[in-house]
C-alpha cells in the first residue's frame, strides 16, 4: 500500500528546485518512477511530498557538447537514447546498453537520470557511463556542480546528491582516437537487472598496446565500481589472452559482491572473472576499427 502524499508537478527546473528547497528531506523526486514506485509500494519509501519532474521538458534532450561529445538531459527516456541516431560510433554502446535495460514499456517511461539517482548497483547505465568517463551535473538553488559518474553512487541506493539537489545532465566526452567501448550483462531473464554487468573502454596506442583502459562493474559491489587493479594489469601492455585472463582474476578479487536470490557471491565473482576478459576483448576489437 502506498502512503498518501502531496503531489507537485513543476513545469520548470527553477520551480522544482524551489520546491525541493522548501521541503528538503521530506520531499522525494519522482520522474519515470519505474524504480521508485516499487519501493513506495513496498513501503520502503514513504515521502510526505512527491515532486514529480516528469513534465519538465527542458531537461529532456540529447545534444552535442560542441567537442564531439554528448550532453544528455537527465529526463531523457531510455527508449529515446536507444533509438537516437546520435548513439553511433563511440556512443553506440549506450544504445546497446539501453536495448538490454528492462522491457520496452519500462524504457518508454523510465529515464536515464532516474535510473542513476535510484543508486542500484545493478543498474545498466552506470557501468557504461563510467567506462565512457562521463560526468554528471547537479543543480540546486545555490548553483551547479559536476561529479564523475564513478563518484556518484556512495552505497546501496545512496547517491552523492545533497538535500535540495537535482541531477540535470550527463556529459559523455568524445572518446579519444582508437577507443572502443563495450558492455554486457549476465541475467537469466532478458528484462531483468544484471546479475553482473561489465563495461570496458580501451584506447589503443602504438603497436596496438593498451594506452588507456577503464573497466566498470555492475552488481559486483555496493556501488557500480571501477576495477582499477584489473585495469593496471592491462594498462601500457600489449594485450594477450593470458593478460586478459589475469585481469579477469584480478577483477574478481577486487569485486565485493553479495549473495542474494539471483546468485551467490562466488558465482558473481566467477562471472566477473569470465566477463571482464570477454568484454575487454570486444572493446579492443572495436578500438582497432575506431
Amino acid at each position, binding site marked *: 500500500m502506498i502512503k498518501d502524499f*502531496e*503531489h507537485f508537478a513543476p513545469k520548470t527546473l527553477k520551480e522544482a528546485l524551489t520546491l525541493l528547497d522548501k521541503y528538503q528531506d521530506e520531499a522525494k523526486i519522482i520522474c519515470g518512477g519505474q524504480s521508485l514506485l516499487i519501493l513506495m509500494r513496498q513501503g520502503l519509501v514513504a515521502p510526505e511530498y512527491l515532486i514529480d519532474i516528469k513534465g519538465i521538458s527542458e531537461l529532456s534532450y540529447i545534444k552535442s557538447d560542441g567537442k564531439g561529445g554528448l550532453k544528455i538531459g537527465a529526463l531523457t527516456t531510455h527508449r529515446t537514447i536507444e533509438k537516437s541516431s546520435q548513439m553511433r560510433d563511440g556512443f553506440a554502446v549506450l544504445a546497446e546498453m539501453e536495448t538490454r535495460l528492462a*522491457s*520496452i*514499456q519500462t524504457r518508454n517511461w523510465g529515464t536515464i537520470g532516474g535510473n542513476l539517482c535510484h543508486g542500484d548497483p545493478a543498474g545498466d547505465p552506470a557501468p557504461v557511463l563510467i567506462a565512457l568517463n562521463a560526468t554528471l551535473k547537479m543543480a540546486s538553488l545555490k548553483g551547479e556542480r559536476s561529479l564523475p559518474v564513478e563518484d556518484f553512487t556512495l552505497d546501496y541506493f545512496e547517491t552523492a546528491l545533497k538535500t535540495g539537489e537535482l541531477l540535470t545532465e550527463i556529459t559523455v566526452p568524445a572518446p579519444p582516437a582508437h577507443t572502443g567501448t563495450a558492455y554486457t550483462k549476465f541475467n537469466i531473464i532478458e528484462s531483468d537487472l544484471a546479475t553482473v554487468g561489465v563495461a570496458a573502454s580501451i584506447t589503443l596506442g602504438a603497436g596496438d598496446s593498451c594506452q588507456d583502459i577503464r573497466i566498470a562493474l555492475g552488481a559486483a559491489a555496493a556501488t557500480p565500481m571501477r576495477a582499477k587493479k584489473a585495469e593496471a594489469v592491462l594498462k601500457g601492455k600489449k594485450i594477450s589472452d593470458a593478460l586478459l585472463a589475469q585481469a579477469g582474476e584480478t577483477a574478481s578479487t577486487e569485486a565485493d559482491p553479495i549473495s542474494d536470490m539471483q546468485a551467490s557471491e562466488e558465482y558473481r565473482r566467477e562471472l566477473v572473472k569470465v566477463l571482464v576478459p570477454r568484454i575487454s576483448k570486444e572493446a579492443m576489437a572495436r578500438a582497432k576499427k575506431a
Partner: protein
Amino acid sequence: MKKELKLKVNGQPYDIFVKPKTLLVEALRDHLALTGTKRGCNSSSCGACTIMLNGMAVKSCSILALQANGAEIVTIEGLAKGTELSPLQKAFLDHGSYQCGFCTAGMLMATTALLTENPKPTKQEIKEGIDGNICRCTGYNSIIRAVTAVVKGEYKEAK
C-alpha cells in the same frame, strides 16, 4: 487531497478526481470501470497492465495516474472498431494465442504498440516487443505466430 485528472481514453475525454497515490491502472479500472486492463504483479514485472500512452506501450501499474494528465490513452477496450476486432485481436483468436486470457490484454497492447512503431518487425523484434509480458499458459509461440500472420498481411484492418 484529491487532484483533478483529465484524460482521453479510447477517444473519450474524462475528467476525474483522484488521490495522488492512485496508479494509472487503478484510475482505469476502479474510476473509469475499464477493467479490460489487468493487474497482475503490480510491480512492473508481468506486463498484464500494459496500455498505450501517447502511442507508447507502458505499464499502467508503474505510473502515477496524475502523470498521465492530458495524455491520450488506448486500452484493450479501444482496439476493436465497433464490433469489428482489430487484426491482432482476430489473429490471436485464430492462433489460439491465449488460454486463461489474463495476459492477453497486455500482450495485445504491447504488440499493437510494436506494430504502430514498426509495421514489419522481424521474429526477433516481435520477441523483444513482448519481452516485458509474461504468459503462464500458452507459452509464447502462438502469440508470435499470430503477430507474424498480421505482419504478413493475412488480417485486414476494419474500415
